[in-house]
């Protein structure tokens, strides 16, 4: 098990380094000169040269890269070209918003999706299944920016149940924070919930007709124990895989959702940075997203081995 973890961690580190290279080069391949964007009215060659020198843009690429990696390793993502604020301090305000939004969306989606999926499988061919299937279809086919606008229109503006936009930090006012973030999280989670529901349902249907579930029934276990301990647990591996795969979609979904609800998160920061060719910010954002992916994949692999003992690949021999 320890060897498996080490191998897996080494692979993750390698992927991380490669993604740093890709991020670094990718940003520089974007059309447009940041110096031009920064210079504003004064576009004299001397001014542009000074700007390039100030931000190290006149150095050869490998040197720029080496300097970049060295700084990133110390938590220094540079200074935003646009605002002059250190990127790291921009991240410390923006990141918690996005992380909270995404985590809440995943939690809600998992609870709703797994619950509805189990219900649909257990109550197969009855109204509960039709309802769950119908809701999943809606969740999958309706784009969440539209759903978000509807929610703002009806729930926030008309009914006044939730604030239409804005954000309060969690530590400052937990209740207000939740009040602000729960609606965006629900909207962001709908698509994921629908996917999780459908996967859970089909995995559960298969599990419920398996031999070991028959054994569990023959033991005289209660239906609840049969469903949770003997069918659901074996179905979770599918759910975990799907959640892992869908996280990319969730991150890009968070960008849109944050825009709609005016949340000062990662998404807003990214869009602003792309429009302004704010290299340091874009690099930091993409790098962090890539890191999040890698870490999540690592966690998914770990979860696999927790859920299914057969996946403890290099575990002690039988």
């Amino acid at each position, binding site marked *: 098990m320890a060897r498996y973890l080490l191998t897996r961690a080494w692979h993750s580190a390698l992927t991380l380094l490669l993604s740093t290279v890709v991020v670094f080069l990718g940003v520089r391949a974007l059309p447009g000169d940041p110096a031009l964007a920064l210079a504003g009215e004064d576009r004299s060659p001397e001014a542009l040269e000074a700007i390039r020198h100030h931000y190290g843009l006149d150095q050869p690429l490998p040197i720029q890269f080496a300097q970049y990696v060295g700084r990133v390793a110390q938590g220094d993502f540079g200074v935003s070209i646009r605002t002059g604020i250190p990127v790291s301090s921009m991240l410390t305000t923006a990141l918690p918003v996005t992380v909270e939004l995404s985590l809440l969306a995943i939690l809600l989606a998992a609870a709703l999706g797994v619950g509805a999926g189990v219900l649909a499988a257990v109550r197969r061919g009855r109204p509960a299944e039709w309802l769950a299937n119908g809701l999943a279809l809606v969740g999958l086919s309706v784009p969440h920016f539209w759903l978000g606008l509807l929610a703002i229109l009806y729930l926030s503006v008309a009914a006044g149940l939730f604030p239409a936009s804005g954000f309060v930090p969690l530590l400052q006012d937990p209740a207000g924070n939740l009040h602000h973030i729960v609606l965006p999280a629900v909207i962001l989670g709908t698509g994921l919930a629908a996917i999780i529901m459908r996967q859970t349902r089909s995995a559960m249907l298969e599990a419920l007709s398996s*031999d070991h579930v028959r*054994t569990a029934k*023959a*033991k*005289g276990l*209660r239906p609840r124990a049969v469903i949770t301990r003997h069918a659901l*647990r074996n179905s979770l591996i599918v759910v975990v895989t799907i959640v892992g795969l869908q996280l990319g979609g969730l991150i890009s979904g968070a960008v849109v959702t944050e825009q709609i609800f005016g949340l000062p998160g990662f998404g807003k920061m990214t869009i602003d940075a792309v429009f302004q060719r704010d290299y340091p910010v874009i690099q930091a954002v993409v790098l962090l997203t890539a890191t999040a992916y890698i870490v999540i994949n690592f966690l998914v692999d770990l979860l696999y081995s927790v859920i299914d003992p*057969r996946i403890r690949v290099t575990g002690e021999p039988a």
Partner: protein
Amino acid sequence: MTTVERAAASSAAVGTPVLDVRDLSVSFTTEGGTVSAVDRVNLDLASGEIVGMVGESGCGKSVTAMSIAGLLPDSARVSGSVRLEGTELVGARESVLRRVRGKEIAYIFQEPMTSLNPVLTVGRQIGEVLQVHERMSKRAARARAVELLSLVGIPSAAKRVDNYPHQLSGGMRQRVMIAMAVACGPKVLVADEPTTALDVTVQAGILQVLRDLRDRLGTTILVITHDLGVIADIADRVVVMYAGRVVEQAPVTDLFAHPYHRYTAGLLAASPTPGKHAGTERLQEIPGLVPVLSIQPDACTFADRCPAADARCREAAPPLEAVGTAVTDHLAACWHPCPAPRTQPQETTA
């Protein structure tokens, strides 16, 4: 007194019937219409008896077995009566059936590979039964699981208890299944093809475990199989099923010595006998397949495959009656039972 009742009475003389199945019929509603799987089956199991139920695939053995503790899917319609020491189980409430399952009537299934939950340790799976029925603590259940594992002959049980099914061999898994089944000391153990998926050498070990359980704990065992070798090895009494009906039933030596029903005779002729088939003689097959019936006809369902069938066989179903002269507990449902003993009373079955 009908012959069936007489047979029941005669085996009751051996011991009190633990399980009493009367007129059990099962049909399934499928997309293609109704399928009749079991037709008015009577079966009684005396305490401490090992009864073998034999027949081809699709003849209703497993459905009969599953219906005993109400384990059939919702699409099954069950009628008749299954009494466990007087308690009616057909149509009983789920809560009643749950108390019976695993505690009074336990099951062993064919595929030890898939019948155990791959994500729980075997100790946990055995302990689960004890926690439910004996209200044991997790700790006590685990300790008892270790004892049970050694009871069914698993070496270093204290270590094996924490293994997952994939870490065990097929034979070991089947032993785990047995340990799980006997955990609460059930009155009846239903073993549905317990050795079919196993190597012959492993098979013998599993059958020995079952025999030991009967001898030590007095468990009544119903063994379902298509393997006459298993029947000869372990059963006291044999029930032969064909197309959902019991066609013959007899003590094991009687049946092998003199099968009366043509189907039984066909089954025996299709099994290799040492000496006879080693040389020149070919095994005889029974032509055709078990029919899939939507309704049970008033006729012998074996008639279409039977060499002795005539008009009478197609017009009326033969009743299950006592046959032969000396023994009264040999029953067969055949209008034209085999006339003379097929072979000399067998040494080969011993």
